[in-house]
């Protein structure tokens, strides 16, 4: 009896040691993901990040077979909640690298925290120029900034579209007001109407009637809420306002097109990514995402994906998951192949991937514009 229990003890000890040894060799690499995950865009970004981890793990992981494990928290678009979540990642979860986020105000706060604690921060979607201007070399950003978009799109509007009279309908936000100021500069007296709408407005008849009354032959929409710009497009159609419809770069997505229905036909825009890009990486990304989430991925999903994908590949190149200085050097020093093509980073940590892709809605689908 005694001998039997001793045997049992030895056996279980052996199993325990074996398991511990195995666990040590395979300890996962933890990457933090911040997203306002209760919102639609936040959920899209998070799903992109999850897919990146899944594909890397399916390929055998990084740093000698270690798997990626994501630790994610909701930031609810609030800087206070974002900082609390980032602190939890750094102090409780032992994470050295934080990725993700949509909101610029959250990203600005998290970048400060990263600077104070020596962490690496790879921001996915935030557009405010100052996110990468905090004087800290371990902050990166994947999305383009409004200034980058504008410098290209302005020329396209002015030289290719050549409107005689322009109306701008913009949401009452930083982005909307900045767009109006920019269009005033670009078109001067040709800008015949510049109207703002509130972020919770839902009836756009009076707004569109005013734009129609101005006699504009081009209407530019500057608002990130797809239900709002989708509805504005519908009202334009209903009120038989035949001006060409333009969406400022980065806001056109398929849900907005769905809401607008046939009123979106012919509307044009530009963006850094479109799911029909032809390369092997993108085909794999789109196929895997569609299989897992039953939806075609767009820019937000791509940026969530890239934030984890590039970070993990950089850890592999740097040979470490802990040394954030080396990982940052690897991110800056390499060209990354992602679904949108080749991505490189400047000295501030800002990503770029060549010219914007001009887009147009055709037969209810967003497709690249024929040049």
């Amino acid at each position, binding site marked *: 009896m005694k001998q039997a229990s001793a045997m049992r003890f030895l056996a279980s000890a052996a199993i325990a040691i074996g398991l511990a040894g195995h666990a040590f060799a395979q300890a996962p690499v933890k990457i933090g993901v911040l997203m306002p995950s209760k919102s639609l865009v936040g959920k899209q970004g998070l799903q992109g990040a999850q897919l990146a981890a899944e594909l890397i793990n399916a390929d055998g992981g990084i740093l000698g077979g270690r798997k990626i494990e994501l630790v994610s928290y909701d930031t609810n678009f609030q800087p206070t909640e974002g900082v609390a979540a980032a602190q939890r990642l750094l102090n409780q979860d032992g994470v050295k690298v934080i990725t993700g986020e949509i909101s610029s105000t959250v990203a600005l706060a998290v970048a400060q925290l990263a600077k104070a604690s020596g962490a690496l921060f790879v921001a996915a979607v935030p557009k405010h120029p100052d996110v990468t201007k905090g004087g800290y070399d371990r902050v990166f950003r994947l999305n383009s900034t409004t200034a980058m978009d504008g410098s290209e799109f302005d020329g396209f509007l002015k030289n290719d579209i050549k409107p005689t009279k322009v109306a701008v309908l913009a949401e*009452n936000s930083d982005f909307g007001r900045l767009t109006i100021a920019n269009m005033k500069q670009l078109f001067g007296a040709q800008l015949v109407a510049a109207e703002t709408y509130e972020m919770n407005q839902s009836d756009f008849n*009076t707004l569109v009637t*005013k734009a129609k009354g101005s006699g504009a032959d081009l209407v530019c929409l500057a608002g990130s809420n797809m239900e709002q710009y989708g509805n504005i497009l519908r009202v334009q159609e209903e009120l038989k306002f035949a001006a060409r419809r333009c969406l400022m770069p980065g806001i056109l997505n398929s849900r907005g097109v769905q809401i607008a229905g046939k009123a979106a036909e012919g509307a044009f825009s530009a963006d850094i990514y479109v799911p029909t890009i032809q390369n092997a990486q993108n085909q794999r990304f789109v196929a895997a995402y569609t299989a897992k989430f039953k939806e075609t991925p767009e820019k937000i999903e791509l940026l969530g994906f890239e934030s984890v994908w590039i970070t993990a590949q950089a850890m592999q190149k740097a040979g470490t998951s802990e040394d954030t200085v080396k990982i940052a050097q690897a991110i800056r020093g390499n060209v990354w192949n992602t679904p949108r093509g080749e991505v490189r980073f400047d000295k501030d940590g800002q990503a770029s991937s060549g010219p914007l892709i001009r887009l147009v809605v055709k037969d209810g689908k967003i497709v690249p514009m024929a040049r």
Partner: protein
Amino acid sequence: MDMLAQQIVNGLSAGMAYALVALGLTLIFGILHVINFAHGEFFMLGGFVAVLAAKWLGLPYLFSLPLAVAVVGAAAWGVDRIAVRSLVQRRDGLSDVLLSTYAFSLLLYHGTLGIWGPAPARVEGFEGSFDLGPVTLTNQRLFILAFGAALIAGLQVMLTRTRFGRQMRAMAQSRFAAQVVGIDVAGIGTRAYVLAAAVAALAGAMLAPVILFSPLMGSNTVIKAFVVVVLGGMGSVAGAVVCGIGLGVLEALMSLYLSEGIASAVIYSLLIAMLLVRPQGLFGKAA
């Protein structure tokens, strides 16, 4: 001139929506003397039923209207049983109901968010539009104007000509006296609450094709409805209708000359001025 006419028509259709939502709110205030914070969510649920009727059940749009009345009416009956009827009799009942209906509004909002998610949805109503001289009107907005007017007329007949209407008006004048003459005040209160919710649900189902359904549509709309109720006089049906439609037209006309932000500021200034100068509202009787 063409634009002026178009903006007046735009304002009429937006104002009809304000009037229908404010109507239920003012009805409940007039009869039960409570402020029903869950009212905006009944409006939202009406829109939600229209979405589900089209997307899940594949029903034609017109069927979603009676369905919205049935579903939201049942929900309102439950809310009344739990959060209104039993509390209103208490010593501080009126403020308790304010809080309990607010709690229900959060519950209904987050419940819908949980089931549906944050994505807005489109409902197909009556498609197409027609021109009256320089003015373009969509069929759905014409439907809102016509059906809304019929609904208001029907309610007016019900309030003045039927036994239920007379009982409600008696309760509005004095709950105690109504009880003394043998009116079942609790039962009439419940029926009034369900009626108000049903009107809100109809408004939600009618508006969903125009403003799109989103779980937030209730809280966005109810604020304007509160303004209408205060301007028109708390408890005044005529006040809610006239001020609702008037506010819609005023907003549309102001948008011709003022920016959106300034126009809103003017409307909320009106609200404060009304409270200072004529606290009983345009159509209310002085206490």
